């Protein structure tokens, strides 16, 4: 270790771990992971944001734990170990929400438990944390959680606006007087297929701007 150069905490390489998942390596639009929960929690903005934060916490800390233990985890049972760590983390988050932020916990209800099944978390543990040091792994987890959360919020924004005519429950379209012109809420936007359509549109926009993503 002594002959290695000490890396600064926020070196360019580490910052890239944070920023890449937001754009070029986004878990949802590029790796197409975690789509399932993106359909479920994006009808309204508020649960989407809380879900995004919870996923960020869980990806960050489970990456951190797995990366710290990586040298002691037997290869043959690593998936089980990863699952145990994720499940423990999610149950702890759920218990804390129930005890200290009861309103938020009610809002999210079953979705907190569903974080366990989010493939992004396990994907990052397997692909990154098992082979890297704790700090970069933690940043990678936070970055991927944020990349996932960003897409959730964008999708939820359009679905709530088009489907219910509100943002955070505030009746935006009504205040703007759009309904007087004969506009009606799009019932399809509150159904899960609309989330897929919006994710598809985001992927389209992203690939048309960054040609290097095409044909990989």
């Amino acid at each position, binding site marked *: 270790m002594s002959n290695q150069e000490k890396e600064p905490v926020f070196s360019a390489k580490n910052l890239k771990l944070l920023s890449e998942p937001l754009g070029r390596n986004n878990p949802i639009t590029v790796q197409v992971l975690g789509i399932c929960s993106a359909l479920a929690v994006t009808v*309204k903005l508020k649960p989407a944001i809380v879900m995004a934060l919870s996923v960020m916490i869980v990806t960050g800390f489970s990456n951190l734990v797995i990366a710290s233990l990586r040298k002691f985890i*037997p290869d043959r049972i690593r998936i089980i170990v990863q699952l145990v760590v994720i499940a423990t983390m999610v149950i702890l988050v759920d*218990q804390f929400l129930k005890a*200290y932020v*009861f309103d938020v916990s009610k809002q999210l209800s079953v979705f907190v438990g569903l974080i366990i099944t989010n493939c992004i978390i396990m994907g990052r543990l397997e692909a990154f944390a098992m082979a890297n040091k704790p700090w970069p792994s933690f940043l990678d987890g936070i970055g991927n959680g944020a990349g996932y959360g960003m897409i959730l919020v964008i999708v939820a924004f359009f679905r709530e606006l088009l489907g*219910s005519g509100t943002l955070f429950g505030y009746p935006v379209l009504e205040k703007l007087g759009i309904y007087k012109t004969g506009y009606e809420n799009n019932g399809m936007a*509150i159904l899960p297929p609309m989330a897929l359509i919006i994710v598809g549109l985001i992927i389209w926009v992203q690939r048309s701007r960054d040609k290097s993503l095409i044909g990989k």
Partner: protein
Amino acid sequence: MKHFSNRYIFIFSAVMVIAVAALLSLAATLLQPAQARNLEIEKKRNMLESINVEANRENTEELYEKYIKEGFVVNSEGNPVEGIDAFTVVVKNEQKKPLEQQYLPVFRAEPADGEKVIILPVEGKGLWGPIYGYVSLRSDMSTIYGTNFDHKGETPGLGAEINTSDFEGQFRGKKLFENGSFTSIKVLKGGAGENDPHGVDAISGGTITSKGLEKMIFDCLDKYNSYFQKNKI
């Protein structure tokens, strides 16, 4: 890749499982009082909302003391049952018993407008899980004074709309009885007429939740029929 012996793997798994179990039980035990307290406040707050009193976490206890006068338990004959705390009765567990043995909680409340109302708990099934709430009745035991509904995991934007004040507000002033017979409330697709004393508008896209809610109100309040007949003014 380092090789791990079978013995190491077994020991590793055992230590991991024990450590995780200890951590989780510790967290559950330490957080239990705070969680139980939240649930109690939530229950009181829902009861207050069913008599149209808005409460927040801080003033719930105070408002509950102020407006909710007493709670007692009756049986399906409408006679009081002694020695049971109405607040701790779990409606879901009661529903599993035969009707004659069920404890039916009743809470008496006096909101600020001087009306004397009773609050009755209801519990039923939505699409994904349980739905529950409180219905408050005026002293004629037929006119709904207010309602509060909640759910465990109905779809946000669809079935979950049952706990919005827009939906709950529709029940105000509706009648449970028609010419002395129990008619309950109908949740109607396509909207209820302005003067329909028994109908409210269903939630578009939330048909199963709406129907579950209709059934919940009928099933739960029907049991109080004898009590209503004995106590109506």
